[in-house]
Each structure stands twice: as C-alpha cells, then as structure tokens.
C-alpha cells in the first residue's frame, strides 16, 4: 500500500498528460511513448497502448492512418471534442487541487 507514491500519482495524471500532448498536435504511438518516458510518466511502451485504448473507449481520442516517409502507415491519435472538454475540466480542477495538497503536505526545502 505504501509502495511507490510517485507511481500512484503518475497513474492518476498520465491519461490527462496524453490529452494535453494531443491537444497540441496529433501524435503516433512512438512519439507519445518518447514524450511520456522522457517526462518519467511511463516506464515502457507496454503502459501506453492499454492507456490509449481506454482513452479511445471513452471517446476522448480517435485515430487515423497516415503514411510515413520511411514506408509503413502510422496510426495517429488525435483529441476528440469530448477529449478536449475532459482536458478543460481537468485543467480547471488541477491547479486548485495541487495548491490544496501543497498547502496540506507542505514543501520540502532544498
């Protein structure tokens, strides 16, 4: 239960981080995996695709195919209107939530 606090937090926000990335531009799986790995939000690509499947099942993202310059067709993910609305709801709640939590737990001084 006390395992990895970071992992629990990441699990709670990673879906919204994907929505945030896709709000800038449509992206394909590898691009998303690199962006999320670099940010330390996922450990491997194995986490990403089940997550994308959930977002698609919720109707928050949709997919389309686009040929790549190197050959095979890539599957791109883009935000739907419903996904955009969900992201807006998250943004509205996130900052007050983060402030409240910071106020309660305090800040670690460097």
């Amino acid at each position, binding site marked *: 239960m006390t395992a990895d606090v970071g992992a629990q937090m990441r699990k709670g926000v990673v879906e919204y981080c994907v929505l945030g990335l896709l709000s800038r531009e449509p992206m394909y799986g590898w691009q998303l995996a690199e962006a999320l790995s670099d940010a330390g939000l996922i450990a491997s690509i194995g986490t990403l695709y089940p997550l*994308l499947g959930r977002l698609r099942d919720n109707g928050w993202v949709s997919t389309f195919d686009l040929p790549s310059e190197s050959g095979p067709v890539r599957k791109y993910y883009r935000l739907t209107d419903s996904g955009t609305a969900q992201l807006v709801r998250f943004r509205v709640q996130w900052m007050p939530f983060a402030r409240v939590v910071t106020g309660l737990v305090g800040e670690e001084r460097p």
Partner: protein
Amino acid sequence: MTDTDTDADRLRREFLGRLDAAMSDLPHGVATEIHDGIAEELGGLDAESTAARIAQLGDPRTIAREARAEVPVGAPIAHAPSEPAARPSAKAPLADSRGFAIAAALVLAFGGFVVPVVGWFVGAVMVATSSLWRRWEKALAILLPFATGALIAVITWIGSLIASASATGEPEHNPLIPSALDLWHSSILLVFILIPAIGGWLLWRLRRR
C-alpha cells in the same frame, strides 16, 4: 544494402516474435495494439536504426508485464469483448512480411500468364493486403491496366467514328487511323509489357522497406 535490409527484417521479426510470446496471456486487443504500434515504428528502418529502437524498447517481457499491470488479464476489452487471449493478429505478420510482398508483386506480374485473368486478380488481392506499399502505390498498380484498357477503348471508338465519317464508298481504310484489329493487337502487347512492368515497379518500391 540488401544485407542491411535483410538484417533489419530479421531483427524486427525476432523482436516481434519474442514480444508476441511474452504477450500471449494478454487480452487480444491490447496485445494487437502493442504489436502493431511497435511494428509500425520498426518498419522501414535500416538494421542499425532497428537495433537502436529495439534497445530503446527494452525487454519484451518487461513491456508485457507493464501492459499486464495496466489491463488485468480477464478484464473486458471494449474493442475485443469476447475474444480469448490469443496470439496477436495472425494476419499482421504475413501482411507485413517482405517475402509476402515480393510474392504478391510476382503474382501480379506473371499470375495472369499462368492462370489468365484469375492469376492477375489473385496478385491484385495480395498486393492490396500487403502493408509494405502505400495506398497510392497499390491503387496505381491495380488500376493502371484498367485505365490503359479504357484509353485504348476510347481511341478505338474515336478511330471507328473517324473511319465511318470519312468512308465515301471506298472500302480501304486510312492507314493513319488505327483499325480495331491494330488496337487489339497493341493492347495485348501492352498488357504483356505493362503488367510485368507494374510488378517490377512494385518490387523496386519495396527497397528499404
């Protein structure tokens, strides 16, 4: 160059094979998504880039373990609701295979000579199935013979109109206007040249894929 391509294909096949084995107990939809996502990233790379990507991906068992943690086995998957856990996408590896694509191009080029008409259609279906060509390449390869046939038909029709309009009771034809028979012969020759040429072009487009 061919050696490099072959090495890339082998590395890709080996990695995807290990990944499929590691994901054998995952729900079909999840395993297929992961397999296809990685396959599309590894496709079209040379051996060096493929090896680098594979190193970046890490151990297939770790990928499968991470996915398993996200979707507990037995959990309903919306886009594959009742399918049992199975090896992902039986058709994807074949459609991705370079050997299959080469066979498809050859059947398209020469299948019609072995089994007239039907052979060509089999080749066309195989070409359409392969994922190694882009959509416009497949469309061009399949539709060009029809477009050429239509063009010949139009020329024949216009030629016959001109011939009948200029006929003034003299039985001989203007040698500058192709007769239907000339065009029929040229169209057969064209098909014999055009279709194998399309097959060759498809093979050429396969390089580095």
